[in-house]
C-alpha cells in the first residue's frame, strides 16, 4: 500500500516540479502575503480627521482643542465658524469627527456651571466611531479638571491590566489569524484542482486502469502538498516571529503539530471539492467561496465568534480555521500546552478524517 501511495506522490511531485510557477506560488505566496498584509492591517486608529467649530474663541476653548490635537490621535482638517459647513465635510468623508464648542463655554467654566462640548461623529464605521469616542472621552476627562484648576477623582475607577499583549498592538492579534487565512487558501487551492484536472484531461481513465485504491490515490496526491505547505507555514510563522514580533511563548513542537493538522484539513477539503466538481472552473469557485470568506469572517480571525448569532456560532464549528486560530493564539501568545487546546487539535483531526473519508467515498463511487 505504502509503495502505491509513494508512486502517486512521486508522480505528483514530478508534475509539480514541471509546473515550477505553481510550485513557486505555493511556496512563496504565503510569505509574500504575510509580508504585505502584516504591515498593512491594523485596528490601531490614528490620524483621525477632525473638524473644529470654535464659537467660544477663548483660552479655555483653545486649551481643549489643543488637548485633542496633542493627544496624537487627531489631526485638524478644518476650522469652521459655522456648523452648517460640517455636513459637506462629513458626507464626503473629509472629516470623520467634528468638535463643536459653544460660545458660552468660558462663562460657564468661570461660573462653575456644568457645561458640555459636542462631538459629531461619522457613525457609518461603527467600530472606528466607538474608538474615536473612547479617545475623546479620555481627553475631556483629563483636561476638564485642569480648566477649573481642581483635583477631581471619581469615586470608583479602574486599574486596567492587559495580559498576553500588554500594549494591545493589533498586529500581535491579527498576524496569527492572517497566517491561518493564507495557509487555508493556499492549501485548498493547491489540491482543489488535483483530481478534477485528471478528470478534465481524461487521465483519470489511465489512473483507473492501475491497481490503485481510491484512498491511496487521494493520500498520494495530498502528501506532496503537505510537504510544500509545511515549508510555507514554517516560513510564515518564522516571519511572524522575526518581523512582527509575535512571541512564540509555547513549544515549537506543538506549533508544528497543530500546523500540520490544520494543513491536512485544508488540503483534505480541497481534495473533497476536487472529487465533487466536474470542471476546474467549478472547483475553483467552490474552493474559493468555501475557504476564503468563511476563514475571513467565521473563524474569529477578525470578528469575535461570541458576538455572532447562535446559529452562526454553530456553523463556525465546521470552519477548521476557527480551531487553528484559537490554538495558534494560545500556543504563541499565551504559551499554554495541550491541556488547554486539546479539543481544538481533536476537532482538526476529526475534520481532516471526515473530509478525506467523504472524498474517498466520492472517488470510489465515480470510479
Amino acid at each position, binding site marked *: 500500500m505504502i509503495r502505491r501511495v509513494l508512486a502517486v506522490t512521486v508522480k505528483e511531485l514530478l508534475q509539480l516540479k514541471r509546473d515550477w510557477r*505553481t510550485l513557486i506560488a505555493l511556496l512563496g*505566496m504565503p510569505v509574500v502575503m504575510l509580508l*504585505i*498584509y502584516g504591515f*498593512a492591517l*491594523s*485596528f490601531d486608529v*490614528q*490620524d483621525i480627521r477632525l473638524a473644529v467649530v470654535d464659537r467660544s474663541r477663548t483660552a479655555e476653548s483653545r486649551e481643549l482643542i489643543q488637548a485633542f490635537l496633542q493627544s496624537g490621535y487627531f489631526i485638524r482638517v478644518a476650522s469652521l465658524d459655522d456648523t452648517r459647513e460640517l455636513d459637506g465635510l462629513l458626507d464626503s*468623508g473629509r472629516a470623520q469627527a467634528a468638535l463643536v464648542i459653544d460660545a458660552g463655554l468660558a462663562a460657564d*467654566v468661570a461660573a462653575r456651571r*456644568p*457645561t*458640555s*462640548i*459636542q*462631538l*459629531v*461623529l*461619522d*457613525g*457609518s*464605521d*461603527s467600530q472606528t466611531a466607538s474608538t474615536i469616542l473612547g479617545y*475623546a472621552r479620555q481627553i*475631556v476627562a483629563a483636561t*476638564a479638571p485642569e480648566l477649573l484648576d481642581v483635583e*477631581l*477623582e*471619581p*469615586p*470608583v*475607577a479602574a*486599574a*486596567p491590566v492587559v*495580559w*498576553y*499583549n500588554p500594549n*494591545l498592538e*493589533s498586529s*500581535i492579534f491579527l498576524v496569527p489569524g492572517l497566517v491561518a487565512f493564507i495557509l487555508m487558501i493556499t492549501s485548498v487551492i493547491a489540491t482543489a*484542482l488535483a483530481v478534477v484536472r485528471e478528470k478534465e484531461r481524461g487521465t483519470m481513465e489511465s489512473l483507473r486502469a492501475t491497481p490503485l485504491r481510491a484512498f491511496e490515490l487521494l493520500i498520494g496526491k495530498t502528501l506532496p502538498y503537505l510537504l510544500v505547505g509545511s515549508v510555507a507555514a514554517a516560513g510564515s510563522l518564522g516571519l511572524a516571529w522575526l518581523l512582527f514580533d509575535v512571541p512564540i511563548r509555547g513549544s515549537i513542537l506543538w506549533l508544528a503539530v497543530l500546523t500540520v493538522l490544520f494543513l491536512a484539513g485544508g488540503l483534505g477539503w480541497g481534495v473533497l471539492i476536487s472529487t465533487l466538481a*466536474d470542471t*476546474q*472552473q467549478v472547483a475553483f*469557485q467552490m474552493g474559493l*467561496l468555501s475557504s*476564503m*470568506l468563511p476563514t475571513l*469572517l*467565521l473563524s*474569529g480571525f477578525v*470578528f*469575535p465568534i461570541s*458576538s*455572532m448569532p447562535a*446559529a*452562526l456560532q454553530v456553523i463556525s464549528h465546521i470552519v477548521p480555521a476557527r480551531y487553528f486560530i484559537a490554538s495558534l493564539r494560545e500556543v504563541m*501568545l499565551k504559551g*499554554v500546552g495541550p491541556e488547554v487546546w486539546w479539543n481544538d487539535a481533536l476537532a482538526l483531526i476529526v475534520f481532516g478524517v471526515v473530509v478525506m473519508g467523504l472524498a474517498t467515498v466520492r472517488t470510489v463511487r465515480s470510479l
Partner: protein
Amino acid sequence: MRTLANILVKELLQLKRDPKILPILFMAPVVQLTILGYAATTDVRRVELAVCDLDRTPASRDLVDAFTTSTYFRRVVTVPSQDGFDAWLDSGRARIALTVPAGYAADRTAGRPVEVQLIADGSDAMSGTLGLSYAQGVLQRVAEGQGFRLPVELRPKVLYNPDLVSRNYMVPGVLAMILMIMTMMLTSMALVRETEIGTMEQLLVTPLTPGSIIVGKLVPYALVGAVEIGTALPVVLFWFRVPLEGSFAVLVLLTAPFMLCTLGLGLLVSTLARTQQQAMMISTFVFMMPQIYLSGFVFPIQNMPQIFQWITYAIPLRYYVTVLRGVFLKGVGLETLWPQGLAMLGLGVVILALARLRFRQRLG
C-alpha cells in the same frame, strides 16, 4: 454585430451546460450574504467576564451587578481568589476579569476613591479592547450614580448610523466583495479554458476580431453580475434592513464602472495565465486578496502605513465600498461620489486596454 451575437450565444450556452455552475451563481451570493452579513459584526456583546469579589459586601455585589446586568457582559465564573483567573483567561473562556478589592465597601462609605482591577485578554484584541472600554463605561455610570460629574461633559452626536450598528456598515461591503469575487472568477477562467482545451485556435480562425472575442466574453458575465446584484440587493434591504438613504439609480449607475473593473481584471488574469490553475492563483493572490484587505472593507485605510494608503488608490473595490456605504448610510448622490465613479471608470478602461494588449501579444 451578428458575429458578436454568435459568440454571446455560445458563451451563454456553455454556461448553461455546466449543471453545477448555475446554483453556484445564483444561490451562493444569497447564502453567502446571509451568513456573512451576520458574521461580520464588530458589535462586541456579551463579553465573557470572570469575577473575583474579595469584599463580599452588598456594595461590592451591587458593583458586580452593574456589570452583569448590562448587555455588554456575561458572567462566566466567580472565582474565590485572583489565582483562579489564570485558567479561564488562558483557555479564552473569559476575556475580561474583574477584581473587587477587599475593603471596597469601607472605602466607599468613607468617601475614599477606590480602584477595582480589570484584566483584559489582549490576544483577542477586538473583545479585549472593547471589553475594557465598556467596563470603563460601566464604572463611569456607577460614579455618576454617586453624583460625580465632570465639569465639562462630552455630548456625542452620531451621524448616519446613530445606534452604531456595525451590520449597516459591513453588509454593503460584503455585497461588494461577493460581486467582485463572482464576476472576476468567472471571467478569469473564460479565456484560459479555451486555450487549455485547444478551442482557442478554432475561435481565431473565425472572422472574429480580438476585440469582439473580448466583448463576447465580457457581456455574458456582466449579465450574470447584474442578476447577482438583483438577487442580493433584496437580502440587504429587506432581510438585514440596511437603510437605503440614497437613490437606487445612483447605486445602479455606479455599479456599472465597478463591474467594468472586475470583469476587466478577470480578463487580464485570463491573458496572463497559461493554465486554469495559474489563473486561479493569479486572481486569488494578485488581485482578490489585495482588494479584500486594502479596500477598507474590514480594515480602515487610515490605519495603514502611508505607502499602503497610496496603493489603495489603485484598488477598484476601495471606491465601490465607499460608494455603497455613501449611498446606503449617508444618502449622498453623484455630487459627492463622482470622483469615485470617475476613478473606477478610469481604472476599468486602463485594465481593459491592458487585457487587450496582452491578448494581442499572446496571439502574435
